[in-house]
């Protein structure tokens, strides 16, 4: 396949970026999208040009590092995958592909396609945990029964990889799917109950502080989430917040 790429180039956070055209030839449909960019980068290095900077690590859809807006969609055209799992067979010979970084005030661009997602870490630091020290003396793991439904639903929420696609795709740049997923995981488990009220209040406050927008129930986040995190988690977070504020 031969493709035309229009890629966002930006030297640093303070620079004004722009889209630059690149041509790639001999693209095999079995290549992953990132391998296609590897080929382009090797080409650029050979021509003494600067390679394109992008985040990536595990290349199997679980670390959450890769983050690209491809043809106007977070992680590209396919559903339920990250960029690193996107393969070139999803494109046709002669296609033009637009590649941009996540766009959100709370995710400033570091370089080219790389953004700073440390706001997510700070939200977790505000309350995304259960306060239990390591001791070797906590109660036996089977001492508290947890229904299969609760464990499975908590697991579904916990599969969030923190990539930020939900924020990137939301017209309000809201992080509610991300925060809702973490709040839900703990809200569904008995271990999470003790600190439930404080947790949701602190995490939501930090989320607002970071400059993420609000949720207007468009549902784009759920559609673009590589792990299929459900909107229900946002509803659960709102219920938890309401409960916390009433008590």
């Amino acid at each position, binding site marked *: 396949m031969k493709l035309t790429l229009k890629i966002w180039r930006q030297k640093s956070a303070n620079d004004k970026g722009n889209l630059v055209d690149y041509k790639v030839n001999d693209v*095999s449909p*079995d*290549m*992953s999208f990132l*391998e296609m960019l*590897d*080929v382009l980068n*090797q080409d*650029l*290095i*050979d021509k003494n040009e600067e390679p394109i*900077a992008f*985040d*990536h*690590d*595990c*290349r*199997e*859809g*679980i670390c*959450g*590092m890769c983050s690209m807006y491809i043809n106007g969609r977070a992680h590209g055209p396919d559903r*339920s995958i990250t960029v690193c*799992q996107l*393969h070139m*067979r999803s494109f046709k010979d002669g296609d033009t592909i637009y590649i941009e970084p996540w766009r959100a005030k709370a995710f400033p661009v*570091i*370089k080219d396609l*790389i953004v*700073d997602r*440390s706001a997510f*870490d700070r939200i*977790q*630091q505000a309350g*995304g*945990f*259960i*306060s*239990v*020290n*390591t001791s*070797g003396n*906590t*109660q*036996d*793991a089977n001492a*508290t*029964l947890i*229904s*299969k439904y609760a*464990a*499975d639903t*908590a*697991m579904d929420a*916990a599969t969030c990889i*923190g990539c930020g696609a939900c924020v990137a795709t939301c017209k309000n740049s809201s992080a509610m799917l991300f925060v809702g997923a973490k709040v839900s*995981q*703990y809200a569904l*488990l008995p*271990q999470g109950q003790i600190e439930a009220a404080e947790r949701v209040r602190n995490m939501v406050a930090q989320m607002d502080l970071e400059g993420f927008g609000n949720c207007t129930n468009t549902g784009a986040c759920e559609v673009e989430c590589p792990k299929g995190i459900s909107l229900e988690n946002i509803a659960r977070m709102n219920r938890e917040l309401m409960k916390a504020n009433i008590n």
Partner: protein
Amino acid sequence: MALDSKVPEGPIKDKWTNYKDKINLVNPANKRLIDVIIVGTGLAGGSAAATLAELGYNVKAFCFQDSPRRAHSIAAQGGINAAKNYQGDGDSTYRLFYDTVKGGDYRSREANVYRLAEVSTSIIDQCVAQGVPFARDYGGLLDNRSFGGVLVSRTFYAKGQTGQQLLLGAYSAMNRQIGRGKIKMYNRHEMLDVVIVDGKARGIIARNLVTGEIERHSAHAVVLGTGGYGNAFYLSTYAMGSNVTAAWKAHKRGAFFANPCFTQIHPTCIPVSGDHQSKLTLMSESLRNDGRIWVPKHMEDVLAIREGKLKPTEIPEENRDYYLERRYPAFGNLVPRDVASRAAKERCDAGYGVNKTGEAVYLDFATAIERYGKEQAYVKGLDENDKALIKKLGKDIIKAKYGNLFQMYEKIVDQNPYETPMMIYPAAHYTMGGIWVDYNLMTTVPGLYAIGEANFSDHGANRLGASALMQGLADGYFVLPYTIGDYLSHDIRTGPIPTNSKEFDDAENQVKSNLDKLINNNGTHSVDYFHKKLGKIMWNKCGMARNAKELKEAISEIAELRAEFWKDVKVPGIANEYNEELAKAGRVADFLELGELFAKDALQREESAGGHFRDEYQTPEGEAMRRKEFQYVSAWEYKGEPKDAVLHKEALVYENIEVKERSYK
């Protein structure tokens, strides 16, 4: 220098308890005066950082990713072992210890492994308390599955994302301490040297990967939880950024490197599709609970498949060779990884590989789908003879168990594994070798520790499935916090370690000149060009089967490649900016040294053990032939060039387990 493993006296059952009773402790007020650097935030580094901060030490944690949550522990799929015996199937601390030592082909240190088995149960308790959503049964109790090389079900899991959930648990514990100010987190930082002052590890030199700035960080002790070196093979199941640099710099500063040739080639990975390939994807070993591995019995079927004239589903049962079930009836498809990988290689070398490259075997779920379907039909009172219904019910069960893995496979290969068998082939996955540590997890450099995959101690020559997560968390949550306290008890009056000493100057200058050399080289080939070449040498000559002739070739070829790298590598851009090529160049430079030591170690070890298989040492049936003369750990001391490395031996003594033939028949 004689190696002292510092294994405590007494019966193996009491060693750890007695040890803990007798070590020096640091009182809470004094812990506030002590700094600890932890490099790497995977299961080992993350859990250690959280626990040490909870205890009151000042922790500085470093990772090269944009967040500690992204360390490659996140990709571990199948599960974590613990001797809980919740299934009542005869499990115990001793049996987990026994399985692990036997699984490691009697090349691990007994006392370390016993301690690992002993603390395994606390890990599960701790993770559940943290809110890790392990799989549960309908009664609300924790569920278990079985893994290779064992006869009990002791593996706890969270779908096919166990590593992710455990890492997020450790990450949440870290976050709590970051929020309290007890951990200072340095994301997008890479350690480029360890600083030794008066013979003790007292800090590191790190590069800020965003600005390119070189930073000095001091502490009273330095802990490396920096993972394995499998990316020496270029293609592997490791993350793209996984590297040996931190471990190798430690080695160059005096830490012995143990058993580098003990590498795990995992049997069930998605086969290579072409030259563009950047990484290989693992399909969890848990799939071997339900998947059956086979190749066609007859060559004409193999050829017809390769030509696309025949589908695997069209080959009748009697024309299939379920070679693991045939060769190892007792363990069948759940033989340990080294055995399964070699058996796949044996069939493919014999010409029975089922894809175009001839390097793939089938992993087939049809039998399991039918079995589960029938079970479900019976439970639900439905027609057990309705084939379409059975298939649908069976698929639902398989989907619930392995859904994410099947989806991953389909995305990469573009085939539906519910309808046609998966194709798999072995790939580099884990390194049992690593930095030599004593019972305290301290390296040969005082104050420098290595934990998790970065050290060598617990898995011998082969790691059993679901044991990496166990070891990472055992080291970080339950072992290091005790052992490092004993060491740090001597540092309560030391005060902060200054970073303006000559040692810091020297280390920083060396790091900077190294970076300058790379960036100003202006050669003709990119970093990847050299990395791929190294990978080919490693895979072809230091891979699943090795022999003296090829290992000697590998040693000289790697040395030549390294010389060519330093002469001809091309790194674009400048040092004071985000520059991934520069970061990669430094990592590949270290792989080019480690690779040679790896081959040297493999050549020196004239036996077959676990993942190290020497063609010259095999039984008439083609099984690994271990040799009593090599019942030791090879710990290599750095002396300049890898070829000059000096071997130190730690004899392995087995007092609590009989060393016998490792049979899975």
